[in-house]
């Protein structure tokens, strides 16, 4: 059964680099690498840098050897979000349904494109591509198909700056096309799944759809089965205009190099608690279970969790909870390189029946921390930050991270671009 509404997938070509080129035209036509991880590695690259042999994730000291003429740029997620939202606006203008899949990828209902732009679907998609370039300045590739999987395949295989309307192909063209794509290229088929499939002589997408559906389900679970249907042209995964509720919210990451200094470790906990609470506030949730995960370069790392009696988003309470976990981890004098704070057992604030009793947590030295005594200050901080800007006011305990806070781009990370379906 084929669906009536064709689905489009719009994918920006080397988005971070393209976004930098919008505001800095001198970067056009040259090999450009966008640096993340405190300047240590290439997180995005231009096609020129790719052609020189630099891969994403390569440390800068290797990238500069591979391509001495490359120019490196500091990442700026605030700016990338501005352009990403502009792209969403353009799409929303021509499509009744748009899914914000990631910062540089969107699915959309393409049924209206020919009516909006005129001509065939392919011609209309080409005009949409031009409009995106004129209004946002970012080159995009567009795929159109009967399902999200087909649409994404279309955009992936038309890069850079191409358009592929797969639903307009004849059966023969479609089979030839699917035969030309290795099964490992499919979104949802990782390395291990690819090996499994190849062991059963399923090498390309045509082999995949010709395989028995139940066999695929047995091999790759129902996700593989959904992929099988989608490649047949049957839309299983619908366009999602809003993100399903989170099961967990996490904040953290690299500490910008390892640190064994207790004050800095505590400061990182506080910084990440502030970020975690901000994310919880955005989603309007409280949490009851909190986990801390630490990566220590010289041993196996550490993980622990605490379950509270009541859901909370209290800054003071969570600081106490996470700091106690840090102390429990026995990381004193041990270098930590990465830290992740995870909030689970989430409840919407509006659905919480507040207890008559205060939520209390006893710190390692037996001192009780109660929620109600501190919320006024946290609320005031939140209100000021909402008005003035993110982290304009933050806890004084983060002052042990002056280098991090002197650099305003550290205030904004890819996970802070809210509303996306995936990371």
């Amino acid at each position, binding site marked *: 059964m084929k669906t009536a509404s064709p689905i489009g997938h719009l994918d920006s070509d080397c988005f971070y680099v393209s976004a*930098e080129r919008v505001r*800095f*035209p*001198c*970067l*056009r*036509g*040259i*090999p450009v690498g966008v*640096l993340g991880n*405190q*300047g*240590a590695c290439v997180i995005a690259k231009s096609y*020129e840098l790719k052609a020189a042999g630099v891969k994403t994730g390569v440390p*800068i*000291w290797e990238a*500069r*050897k591979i391509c*001495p*003429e*490359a*120019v*490196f*740029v*500091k990442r700026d997620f605030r700016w990338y979000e501005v352009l990403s939202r502009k792209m969403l606006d353009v799409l929303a203008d021509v499509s009744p349904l748009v899914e914000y899949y990631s910062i540089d990828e969107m699915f959309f209902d393409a049924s209206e494109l020919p009516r909006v732009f005129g001509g065939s679907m392919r011609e209309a998609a080409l005009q949409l591509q031009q409009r995106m370039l004129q209004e946002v300045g970012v080159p995009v590739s567009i795929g159109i198909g009967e399902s999200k999987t087909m649409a994404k395949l279309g955009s992936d295989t038309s890069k850079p700056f191409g358009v592929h309307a797969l639903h307009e192909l004849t059966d023969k063209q479609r089979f030839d096309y699917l035969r030309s794509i290795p099964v490992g290229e499919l979104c949802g088929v990782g390395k291990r799944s690819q090996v499994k499939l190849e062991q059963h002589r399923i090498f390309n997408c045509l082999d995949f759809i010709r395989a028995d559906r139940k066999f695929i389900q047995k091999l790759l679970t129902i996700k593989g089965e959904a992929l099988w249907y989608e490649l047949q042209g049957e839309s299983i995964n619908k366009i999602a205009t809003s993100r399903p509720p989170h099961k967990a919210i996490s904040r953290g990451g690299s500490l*910008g*190099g390892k640190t064994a200094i207790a004050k800095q470790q505590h400061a990182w906990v506080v910084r990440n608690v502030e970020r975690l609470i901000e994310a919880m506030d955005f989603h309007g949730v409280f949490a009851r279970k909190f986990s801390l995960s630490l990566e220590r370069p010289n041993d196996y790392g550490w993980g622990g969790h605490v379950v509270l009696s009541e859901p909370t988003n209290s800054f003071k309470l969570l600081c106490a909870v996470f700091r106690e976990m840090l102390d429990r981890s026995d990381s004193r004098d041990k270098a930590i390189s990465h830290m992740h704070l995870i909030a689970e057992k989430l409840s919407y604030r509006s659905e919480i029946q507040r207890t008559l009793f205060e939520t209390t947590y006893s710190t390692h030295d037996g001192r009780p921390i109660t929620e109600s005594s501190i919320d006024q200050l946290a609320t005031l901080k939140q209100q000021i930050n909402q008005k003035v800007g993110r982290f304009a006011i933050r806890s004084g305990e983060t002052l042990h991270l002056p*280098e*991090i806070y*002197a*650099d305003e781009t550290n205030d904004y990370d890819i996970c802070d671009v809210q509303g996306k379906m995936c990371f």
Partner: protein
Amino acid sequence: MCQGIALSQCEIPESLIERYELSERIIRRGEGDIEFRFLLAERLPVLPLWHEGQFLILSWGNRDRHNKLPVSAWCSQESLEAGAWHHLRPREVFIPASFAWDRGVWYQVREGLKGVVVTDCERKQHVYVLTQPATHYYEVMTRNNREPVMVGETI
């Protein structure tokens, strides 16, 4: 510290390209715009700068031990603020740059760098790039613990 800069063609008035014989410095990086490159490693290193509305090209730092100027290409902001350059009457200037180069890494510069100009005993002007302690990011990127003072940004 900065050991070279590159300037996009659009940053330099056409008439000055001929006057300063800048066409010798033209480089094209990939398919990008023409750029003019100024490296400290040159035999007679120079830097472009804007000072009091004038575009000038001056010697970059000093290698001569006899002209009483610091033998360096850079002027640390701390030493400038401490008054160590006071007797040379330094004047702050703007060094336009599209990209800067440090320990083999080219990085983007949004506007340009700050520098100081001083005059030697033969009345020849020299420009020094102003530097400051590197941020953590800059140090990771270039493995250098000092970075140039940039106009309107810190990397």
